[in-house]
């Protein structure tokens, strides 16, 4: 990544950082309703659950993965705002169960 000097209004950047980090946390927290929906699909399918469980599980894991990457991306971006290089290690935002999509 480049070392170009940063030019920005730091008030704007602070708000930007807050929004992006909150989004990262919210995306991560979306695992909960997604998992709940999965359980409801299987329980709702009842005796037919075996016939859709493979597809539902593929859906669950694919979206957990997708949400993880989106959350990680938001965390890296949020934690890198204001820095002169991208902080690739900053994939963990500060977790809060209060922030949801």
């Amino acid at each position, binding site marked *: *990544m*480049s*070392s*170009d*000097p*940063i*030019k920005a*209004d730091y008030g*704007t950047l602070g708000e*930007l950082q807050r*929004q*992006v980090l909150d*989004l990262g946390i*919210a995306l991560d927290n*979306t695992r909960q309703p*997604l*998992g*709940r*929906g*999965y*359980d*409801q*699909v*299987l329980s*709702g*399918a*009842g*005796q*037919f*659950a075996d*016939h*859709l469980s*493979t*597809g*539902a*599980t*593929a*859906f*669950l*894991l*694919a979206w957990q*993965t*997708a949400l*993880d*990457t*989106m959350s*990680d*991306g*938001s965390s*890296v*971006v949020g934690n890198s*705002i204001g*820095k*002169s*290089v*991208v902080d*690739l*290690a900053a*994939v963990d935002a500060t977790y809060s169960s209060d922030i949801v*999509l």
Partner: protein
Amino acid sequence: MSDHFSIDASPTDLSAAERVLGEIGRQLSDEGGKLAGLPGQAGDWTGSTAVALKGEMTRVGGQMTASTPHFETATTALATFRTAVEEATTDTIPGLNKQWGDAITEHQNAVGAANRAHADRMSPYRNMPDEDTRGVRGSSAATRDTAVTDADEALTTSQRSLTREYDQCVSDLQQAARACGQALAGAVLAAVPAEVVSDYLAGGGTGTRPPSGFDLDDVTTATRQTLTGDTSITGQADDYAAGRRTAEQAAQWWKDHPHERMPPDLREELAAGATNPAFVQGLMVTAGSSGMARLSVEAARLHNDRDPDADEFFTVLADIYRTGSHVRVDDGEGGSRYLMDEDWLNAFNPIAADPELEDGEERSYRPDLLLPFMREPGFSENFTGLVADRALSDYEKHWMNEDTRDFTKFQHYLGNCAGQGWGCVAHADPDDPWGPNFQIALDRAGDYPTVANSMLLRHRDAVMYLATGNDPPWTGGEGAGVDYPDRAGGALADILRQGTIGLVDQDPRQAVNADVAAGTVAEWLQRNGDAHLVDPVNGALTDVLLHERYLNGMANSLGTPFAPDSGVISDPAYGPLMSRDAWARLHQEAMRDPDNAARVVTTLGDWINRTNADAQSAGYSANGPGGPLTQDPSVSALDRFRAEAVRSFLAGNLTADLDVLQSELERGLADNENAKETAKGVLTTLLGYATDPTSIKDDLIGKGGEFIIGTAVDAVATDPQAITDRYQPTLDALNTLSTGPIVDPSVWDDVNTTATTLAKDEARGTGADDIWAVQPGYDAGNPPRPTAYDGDPRSYVGHTSDYVGGNQPVITDDFLEYDDAGHVTGVKEVDTMNHLQRSAYMSWLQDPAVQRYLNQADHAVQEARERAGR
């Protein structure tokens, strides 16, 4: 009565799932749109990092928005399935159950009716003895039984039919469930591998609780890669994490298996990420400098074990170091720094990463574990500079001076010790990649003009000590041990070439650094008159001297008044200005080699011819604007002086060490049976070129020394006696050229003194006579009208200024001195002039009226003009 048919499914739960997934899809769309819009709210946030981060926001936002249709698909699939379940539970199943009940009721009714009919038939016979009614009863019972049997069959038929319908309903629902599942599986941005899904199900995972030991990140690497692509920041973060994991696994391996080589799978991970900057960053940040040195030890041990994978792992590690050298990280102070910076280099020692290695070994930088991987170029300019600077610093401190030489502190440059105990292999095979490595630092220093220039400026003494063959082991010079590579000389040649003309060509704004480097080399050679450059460096010096900037610098040092007595002035227009002695030392050094001498003679000869031609074209004056032009060498006397000064300079340098030149020529012609005579003939030819540059044929200009010498050899072969007979007369002529007032540096003192008087006189209306003359560049086939020149210096000032900062932020071209009344009193001392003043002053001196004046007033100028006319 309980229902006969039922199904276990909950439309309510399915409906709840639909709501959850639908809500997630909507939120992803809304928030994704907001995220993609955030960069637009920070338009004043700029810089490449900002661009990258904004790009990632846009990418993630777009991906979130693109998620929504998939959730809609999933919701629709669930709704379809739920509708089917609802139809079954509210319509089909109850209908079947009703029909089932109706069939039973119908059956019951039929049986009852048959029984009642039987009773009715037998009623008339109820008072009769059984033996009298046996026949009737039997017949009636048979009728009843037939009716019951028919009812039973009807019931069975109905129930079978209903069961079939139920089974079809269940089958339809199963099909609907499968269709729903397939739709769900397809409603994703990127699928996870099937085996991951199977494992999850087999492990009993739920939506909120994965199976024991299940780590999504570990098993969905490929899916994440599909989602993030090769270049996104998130993808890079994944690569970074992979590098970090590899470093952690390596550290754990060394801890658990201190005496074993790393397992192949770890080496494969390193190979896969070796050229990926993010992977390498994660690896290096986690491993630290020490951990990386430990990896080098691993490579050395594989080599020592003659492991078949040793070469491949060596290449992988070289790629990792090369890639890592370009990685920049946050410096914690609002800026960035190179990951492999000076601190990293200082800590490059494996002991901290593997205490098993400790055996009285020092903990400082281990070049033997790094330089072997730098045999090929491609490392960052910054890291290359650090490594080269460290190598030459260590060389100066611990090796160059025999009185203070400390083998133990320089041993790691002599060969690798890792894997063979801590005793160094000082005379290792030079072809061994782990052999002597000092020259590798020199090789790399030549990769970048800035680095090479820095080495010349910071380590001039060491570079020149090596370049003049004072350390044969490294230069391959006389006395070199057979075990050492004969290649450092080439590296030193690159350093000289790159650090001067390479830098000028790359960035003309850095010409001053290049000039200072050239000046410091000249100064060293002047101080060490007996030292001579080894062969390849000598050629590099010739390249420098014949480069346009340095050729002009030499000519302007001789042909203008501005050359300093010592040191170097880097003039934007005139090039590096140095004393005649400094330039002579450089040229004489270059011309010790016949090929170089041939190049210098023909190139300078060409320059002299062109300069004379220019002076000739400007050497015309007239009586007035309409008068005929007549040849008048005096109006371009100074221009002729410049050409003649260079010819004199060339003559002096060529004759300075003729014995060496001749012996070198003889050595080069050793295969020729008349080597001695042929060498003398070639020498005569070169002397002749210098005496009369017009004798140089055009096809020799710009050619290599070997071609020029070869052409001379061929000429000698045609009539050797005729050529060798010319040797002494030619040499005598050349010696004459290299003497006289023209070679005396005081000539410019006289010119400046004359100029000061002239400037004052011109301002008073006296001084040089006004003349009409043509301007330089006169085309004889299309003569212009002559221009009037009065030699007034005031017309040459006040035209340019320059902002340079510092105490005197703005400089001007006014080279004149004034009294309090503002009258011109002379010209400034040349050593106080800025570059604009130098240019303006020189332009004035080249005014045809002034040139004619100088021709009359200055003996050296007059003599030069007369010599040039011969």
